[in-house]
């Protein structure tokens, strides 16, 4: 033990004497280790963000949406918008049938449109959400002023509209909007409510949406009968998977899909429970994290080779020192240990600095993320990040230090001294 302490102090002295070179040597390692920390932390941050965003939709819902059926797995297109193919099979009859399922409390249907809203001289391109009246019961969005439309208004194709917070502000500023009329397709729609501010989630800015009754948008604006999606509120989340399967069976039956193997690729719809959604997102972030780590490991190895390089230089620079130490009584293992400890110290120090740098950077990233609307981004450094960084540093110190150290230990004291 005493030997090792003594050797550490010898190595530390040597490093202190070559401050500039030591810092250049460790730079690659420091950056590599910092990247490890950042990737782990960003991975955890993104996951926390996604989980909390998904949870904010509510865990007690199941989502049913259209998709293009395909014979090849994995190539199905979300919402069937790509390739100009439009799936029109999902409709309100399906909704009526699905609402009969025991675990389904209620369902709302929706379809999206892009339209211009006019008020006086102001024009605003808006995402129109055509939904059924139960939207306001199932979705987490809330009314700020006024009210949502009723089922009766939906069925009578009423020309009413509820504005998202941002749209209201852009068209009306601070003045009162409730009861006023906005023009949509040259037709007046009365504003009966303003939504509470909700912010952006998973790339959707709820405050930029305007809501009108589903049947109004189908008949008066788009001239269609189908819907894009349904969101089911359920009673019991424990059996959500079973309910999802029941939904699939009913829809296959309704859409005349012959699918005895229950191959999701053949369906013209997709049913997702919230748990599946979270699992899917979790898997995605995990793979991204792994991929980034693989890249970083390569950069760490490059850093390690840099350390090895420098250790070789140090050894050849110090041949006469090594010869002297041997003459004064150092044996092979003393010399070997000295250089091994030096390289481990170098990599350990790199890890330490890299961790500090990585933690600071991760903290900054989390602050920047929160400031830019990702409020649920948590600043987390998983323990495995520290463990990976330290393990890697010590292993690479050993691995990349052992050859130079062996070279040093093998030096013949006489030839080393003659230099």
């Amino acid at each position: 033990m005493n030997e090792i302490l003594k050797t550490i102090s010898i190595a530390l002295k040597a490093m202190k004497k070559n401050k500039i070179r030591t810092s250049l040597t460790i730079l690659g390692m420091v950056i590599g280790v910092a990247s490890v920390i950042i990737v782990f932390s960003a991975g955890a941050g993104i996951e926390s963000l996604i989980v909390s965003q998904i949870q904010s939709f509510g865990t007690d819902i199941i989502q049913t949406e259209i998709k293009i059926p395909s014979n090849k797995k994995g190539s199905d297109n979300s919402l069937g918008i790509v390739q100009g193919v439009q799936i029109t099979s999902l409709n309100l009859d399906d909704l009526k049938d699905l609402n009969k399922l025991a675990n389904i409390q209620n369902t709302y249907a929706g379809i999206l449109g892009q339209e211009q809203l006019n008020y006086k001289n102001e024009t605003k391109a808006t995402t129109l959400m055509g939904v059924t009246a139960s939207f306001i019961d199932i979705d987490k969005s809330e009314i700020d002023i006024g009210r949502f439309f009723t089922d009766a208004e939906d069925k009578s194709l009423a020309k009413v509209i509820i504005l998202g917070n941002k749209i209201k502000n852009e068209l009306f500023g601070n003045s009162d909007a409730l009861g006023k009329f906005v023009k949509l397709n040259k037709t007046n729609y009365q504003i009966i409510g303003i939504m509470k501010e909700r912010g952006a989630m998973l790339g959707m800015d709820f405050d930029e949406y305007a809501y009108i009754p589903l049947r109004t948008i189908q008949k008066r604006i788009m001239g269609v009968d189908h819907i894009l999606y349904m969101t089911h509120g359920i009673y019991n989340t424990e059996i959500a998977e079973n309910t999802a399967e029941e939904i699939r069976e009913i829809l296959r039956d309704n859409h005349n899909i012959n699918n005895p193997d229950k191959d999701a690729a053949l369906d013209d719809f997709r049913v997702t429970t919230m748990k599946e959604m979270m699992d899917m997102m979790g898997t995605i972030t995990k793979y991204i994290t792994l991929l980034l780590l693989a890249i970083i490991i390569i950069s760490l190895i490059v850093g390690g080779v840099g350390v090895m390089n420098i250790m070789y230089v140090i050894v050849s620079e110090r041949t006469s020192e090594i010869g002297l130490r041997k003459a004064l009584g150092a044996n092979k293992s003393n010399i070997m240990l000295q250089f091994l400890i030096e390289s481990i110290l170098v990599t350990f120090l790199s890890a330490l600095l890299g961790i500090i740098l990585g933690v600071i950077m991760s903290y900054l990233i989390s602050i920047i993320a929160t400031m830019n609307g990702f409020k649920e981004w948590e600043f987390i450094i998983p323990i495995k990040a520290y463990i990976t960084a330290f393990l890697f540093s010590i292993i690479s110190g050993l691995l990349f230090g052992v050859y130079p150290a062996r070279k040093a230990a093998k030096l013949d004291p006489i030839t080393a001294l003659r230099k």
Partner: protein
Amino acid sequence: MLIKIQNLKKQYGEEELITKVLHGLSFTINQGEFISIMGPSGSGKSTLMHILGLLDRLTKGQYEFEGQDVSKLDDNQLAKLRNEKIGFVFQAFHLLPKTTVLENVMLPLAYSSDKKNHIAKAKKILESVDLGHRLNYYSNQISGGEKQRVAIARALVNNPSVIFADEPTGNLDSKSGKQVMELLQNLNDQGNTIILVTHETQTAEHANRIIQLKDGLIVNDSSVKNKRIAKNEKILVK
């Protein structure tokens, strides 16, 4: 008897590239002797010193150090013996750069089994070679003569049985050279065995006995009649 060699031969290299350097040397050295090994350049003085100093192994012959056949010792045992029994002083000083005088002198203690009072020991030795005022100077901040005295202090710090000095004055001006020789002489007066390698007759005559080498053979081995006594203003060893 401290050192006994019999028919010592040394060659470097293998097969066609063999260089035969020492061709069969025999002598004994006793505790307390001051010996100069002399000879022209290339005669094998340093080679002999390296073998006697256990830095190198002989090719043929016998070498007993303090009664022990050193050919039977492995590298680690030789390192331990060098650490405990042998002090080296080199022409090129070989001090560690960017290291203080005190730390340089402490270096052999780092490899010794003696774990205590390293600083106190090194300080005491440095004071005895009149360098008490240079303890925390870096090795590049002192003069050549001071460097060599640091090297001598380093050779002494483990209280060795013998000190080997290979051309210790070779890189020094005559005044510093004189100081170094006076120091070695005083150490010998106190009972230290000293083996000095030099090719200068004047320097060699500080010893009591001169072994002359030529082409790897001893051509003369005799005691010095007119032993030179180095004199200086100061007495360096107290």
